[in-house]
């Protein structure tokens, strides 16, 4: 089997993006715990959990909130493998790369846990000072664990909110909570039209594939992709003009109006009470 070329990889990426979005909408419609809650209450409580995650310096609190997201995902019928993959796939790549240097004593001095290298003499290199022994410190490890846990918990909360709330309901809830309406409208339209453009791009790639025999150079493929990007930009510009006219025609006057059909029920009140009690208890016991 030969390696996929540049264009084929892009095509697979486009198809995967659509699949992921369709799956996400599928989970949002399942009869699970979080799916059944009023999205306004959900946004407020998730925001409170995010704030608690951002301000705490205790790994126990972070771990508690992270475990809560896992329990909530299970209660909302989100497969655990799918959920954890979405969260943990990028963490080693981005957060790990940032946190890794912080575990060493030349970035975070402290009590050594493990000695890696013993140098003949300390080294000064630019702004860095390397002591005679390069060690992993307890303080550095603790900082890195807190950082990774904080990112993982925040990402888990965001992913969980998005997976269990239909996009349209999420936007309406934001509007009901007095988020700037034009911003919400732009978000909604971006999400709406991104799929149209993914479809156009996919068809362009397929049309190219149907006319190509044999292998082409990466340089040629890149040239083709950049030309198509220009075409897409032009197309999106024309489409945005037409959409604006369609909005004008239907009464748009620059003021976005939304209609919400939310009902705050006892279970929503119970959820809000539970979340705030959970945050209070976990912070109280961990301190």
């Amino acid at each position, binding site marked *: 089997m030969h390696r996929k070329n540049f264009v084929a990889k892009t095509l697979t990426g486009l198809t995967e993006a659509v699949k992921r979005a369709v799956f996400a909408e599928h989970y949002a419609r399942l009869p699970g715990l979080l799916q059944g809650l009023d999205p306004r209450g959900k946004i407020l409580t998730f925001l409170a959990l995010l704030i608690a995650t951002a301000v705490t310096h205790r790994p126990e609190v972070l771990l508690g909130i992270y475990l809560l997201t896992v329990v909530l995902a299970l209660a909302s019928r989100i497969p655990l493998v799918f959920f954890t993959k979405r969260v943990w796939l990028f963490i080693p790549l981005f957060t790990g790369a940032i946190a890794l240097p912080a575990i060493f004593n030349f970035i975070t001095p402290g009590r050594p846990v493990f000695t890696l290298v013993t140098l003949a003499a300390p080294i000064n290199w630019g702004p860095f000072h390397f002591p005679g022994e390069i060690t992993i410190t307890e303080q550095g490890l603790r900082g890195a664990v807190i950082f990774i846990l904080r990112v993982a918990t925040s990402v888990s909360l965001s992913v969980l909110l998005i997976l269990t709330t239909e996009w*349209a309901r999420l936007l309406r809830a934001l509007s009901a909570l007095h988020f700037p309406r034009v911003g919400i409208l732009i978000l*909604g339209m971006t999400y709406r039209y991104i799929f*149209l453009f993914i479809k156009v791009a996919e068809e362009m790639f397929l049309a190219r594939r149907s006319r190509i025999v044999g292998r082409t150079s990466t340089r040629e493929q890149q040239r083709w992709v950049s030309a198509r990007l220009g075409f897409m930009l032009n197309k999106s510009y024309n*489409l945005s003009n037409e959409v604006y006219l369609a909005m004008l*025609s*239907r*009464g748009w006057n620059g003021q976005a109006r*939304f209609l919400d059909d939310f009902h705050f029920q006892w279970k929503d009140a119970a959820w809000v009470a539970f979340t705030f009690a959970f945050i209070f208890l976990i912070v109280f016991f961990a301190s």
Partner: protein
Amino acid sequence: MNTPVFTVSDMSYTYPDGLTGLQEINFTVMPGENVVILGVNGSGKSTLLKIMDGLYFPSAGKINAFGEPLTERRLQDDEYAFAFRRRVGFLFQDPDVQLFSPTVWQEVAFSPLQMGLPKKEVAERANEALSALAIEKLRDRIPYQLSEGEKKKVALASLLALDPEVWLLDEPTANLDPRTQDWVIEFLLSLTDKGKTLIVAIHELEVAEVIAGQAYILGEDHRLAAQGRPKEILRDEELLLRANLLHRHRHFHADLEHRHPHRH
């Protein structure tokens, strides 16, 4: 005497890039009339509809709507704009342009909501429009999940929710399968039965013949080549050939060459 819905006088339109869109157009549309505007792609049909919907404005000449000048300045007044937009609905050729909301229900509710109708009435109108077109099951669907036929129905429902007096329709049967095409034609005929004014841009002569009371032909020179009863206009082969709506088709039966006009 009834006030005309539209009076177009010596109207021309030039695109911002300098290309000619329309040249010296004159016509009057009376309430309850069904007008088809025939012409090949690029003849200016869509531009003419956009001018009638107050989205583009003439470069020369003028257009009156319901007896009053339809100008950019007047449409900047919300009160006038809302009154005009409640009376005139526009179906865009590409349903993806028209369906810009996150869900079908929000799409259908968009116009009544923008016009400031009470929320209860907005919900009633949206539900009635969905049920009139038998698409209640699409209510929570996202536009990218719809077929072309479903998109067209949702776009029509979004206009029906406002129930305008005048329906401007740009190629309403384009890119549809035959069954949906028939359904759209039946729907348009039901609107004419209710006394609505229909102005339909189209290039399919067969469809034009079924729905039109009046036919206008836009030539490739962007001028009105003819106007009149469809029965007369659509039988005038020379006129249709000139407007490129017919072409001379040549084929062979065994060794015998056969030529006849062919409709697009």
